[in-house]
């Protein structure tokens, strides 16, 4: 059984572009497709051990995966997400401008160089996402609503800022502008903004909470570490509705990688910290390639459809039940 993506049939769909990207299924996704057993522990990785070695034990084989929790088993039994695709990446033209050599200067235009992932099922090591029972209940409800063709309202679908994870996860380019006090991410999608405050004295926490939360960053070596919290409402982490509670926190570790192969990229490791829905913090990784040729964005004007007073303000989506 496969999860259909019914929103493509809805008038006023803010995610038409994302649905189209799904057509090019196949290829590697952002996370391991079936996520073999984790081979290492680390941020968000599973604890080692838990099972006796099998008869064919080899000291060079990866350890067996830990047993799944009841919540993880429920998540694994859900209809699989729509396979994500991506548009062909533009070839970097000869003589193209390149990123600044300073590893702490992230400025420029960047574009997702992995397939769109509709649902984060596994962490960056391939282990199943550590749902607790409340978390898998929310996910299952959302997946079922998609399957039934009656998806729930969420910020993205009604042309509101979708939160920092979903905002950068869809396959649309963004620019980074940087000063000593803050870093501004400007996205084509939703004409979105994500502000990372380096100097909170210059940009204090606003009185009203924002859809994108409040993000404070600092440099750890050449990695920008950003902690985002204080969300106006609980954001969805992806298209299928992997949940984050409004009290949840995202920790993003962002670094520029330039191996001298004319293919620089930035890596973003996001650690999801949310005891409301998960048994432990867990991490996903995304990479974004250098694409100056995408500096001129396509116009993204979802308001024209979503704001149409002759149609429902919720784009025909259903309100999600409260827990």
């Amino acid at each position, binding site marked *: 059984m496969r999860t259909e993506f019914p929103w493509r049939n809805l008038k006023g769909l803010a995610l038409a572009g994302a649905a*189209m990207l799904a057509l090019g299924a196949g290829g590697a996704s952002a996370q391991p497709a079936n996520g073999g057993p984790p081979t290492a522990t680390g941020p968000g990785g599973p604890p080692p051990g838990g099972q006796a070695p099998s008869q064919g034990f080899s000291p060079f084989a990866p350890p067996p995966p830990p047993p799944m929790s009841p919540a993880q088993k429920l998540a694994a039994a859900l209809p699989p997400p729509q396979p994500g695709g991506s*548009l*062909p990446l*533009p070839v970097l*033209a000869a003589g193209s*401008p390149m990123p*600044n*050599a*300073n*590893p*702490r*200067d992230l*400025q*420029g*235009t960047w574009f997702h160089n992995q397939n769109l992932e509709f649902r984060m099922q596994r962490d960056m090591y391939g282990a199943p996402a550590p749902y607790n029972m409340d978390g898998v209940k929310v996910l299952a409800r959302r997946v079922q609503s998609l399957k039934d063709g009656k998806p729930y309202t969420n910020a993205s679908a*009604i*042309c*509101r*800022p979708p939160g920092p994870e979903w905002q950068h996860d869809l396959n649309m380019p963004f*620019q980074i*502008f*940087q*000063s*000593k*006090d*803050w870093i*501004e991410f*400007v996205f084509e999608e*939703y*004409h*979105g*903004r994500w*502000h990372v*405050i380096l100097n909170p004295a210059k*940009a204090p926490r*606003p009185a009203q909470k*924002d*859809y*994108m939360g409040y993000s404070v960053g600092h*440099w750890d*070596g*050449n990695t920008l570490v950003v902690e985002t919290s204080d969300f106006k409402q609980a954001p969805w982490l992806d298209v299928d509705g992997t949940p984050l509670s409004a009290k949840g926190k995202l920790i993003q570790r962002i670094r520029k990688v330039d191996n001298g192969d004319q293919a620089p990229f930035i890596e973003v490791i996001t650690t999801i910290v949310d005891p409301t829905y998960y048994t432990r913090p867990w991490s996903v990784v995304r990479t974004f390639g250098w694409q*100056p*040729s*995408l*500096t*001129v*964005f*396509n*116009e993204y*004007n979802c*308001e*024209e459809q*979503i*704001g*149409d*007073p*002759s149609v429902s*303000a919720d784009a025909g989506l259903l309100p999600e039940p409260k827990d």
Partner: protein
Amino acid sequence: MIKSRPRHCAVLAGVLVAAGLAASAAAQAATPNLEGVWKIATPTKTLKPVKGTVPFTEEGRKQYDENKRLQAKGDYDDYDITLTRCNSPGTPRLMLTPERFKIWQRFGVLTFDFEWNRALRQINASNLPPKDDFMGAGLVPTMTGTSKGHWEGNTLVAETTNISDRTLLDDLVPHTLDMKVTEHIRLLDHNTLQDRITIEDPAYFTRPWDAVVTYKRQPAALFAEDVCLDRLQAHQPAFPSQ
């Protein structure tokens, strides 16, 4: 000894950051730098001709009068979907928004980053190769149109076409799909930016006509998250300060 190492690293990294950012700015020194935070000097809803009145053709006058009639009736969605839907005001109306905007210059592309509803417009004065257009997006008129720019001395000259006729020039004046907007954007002094806007649209105007809008430099700032649709949902106006 061990404790001091991170401090040295931090100092070194700080120097590198400063050097890198300075290098970025230097790389753009060949063209005038319009970057900064700007705000319209005299807020107005009207794109006022420099001389006389808007030179409507008969057809243009008819549509303008119809817009006035709809405005008086309160049928805003029938002529101005910015007010009713938070649709992008487009080019050139975005340049009349009463809130601040930022200009960024990267790779020859000028990105206008508006405080109002996080709106964007861009002027491509670069030598970047054209983008692939798998979806045929370039065939569809957009609110901000397609803006190509070049520099004439210290003046950015931008020509914009392919602007959707669902936008207005200001709060009332209509245009057709064939409109061309030519802007001459330059610094009058370090703190004053001027945009001379020339409108050409033979179906609605008997001749090209000019308007001049000026902006004052503002202190560097992060803009608060502005979501126009939330205002409409709360039965507030799309433009909070008008």
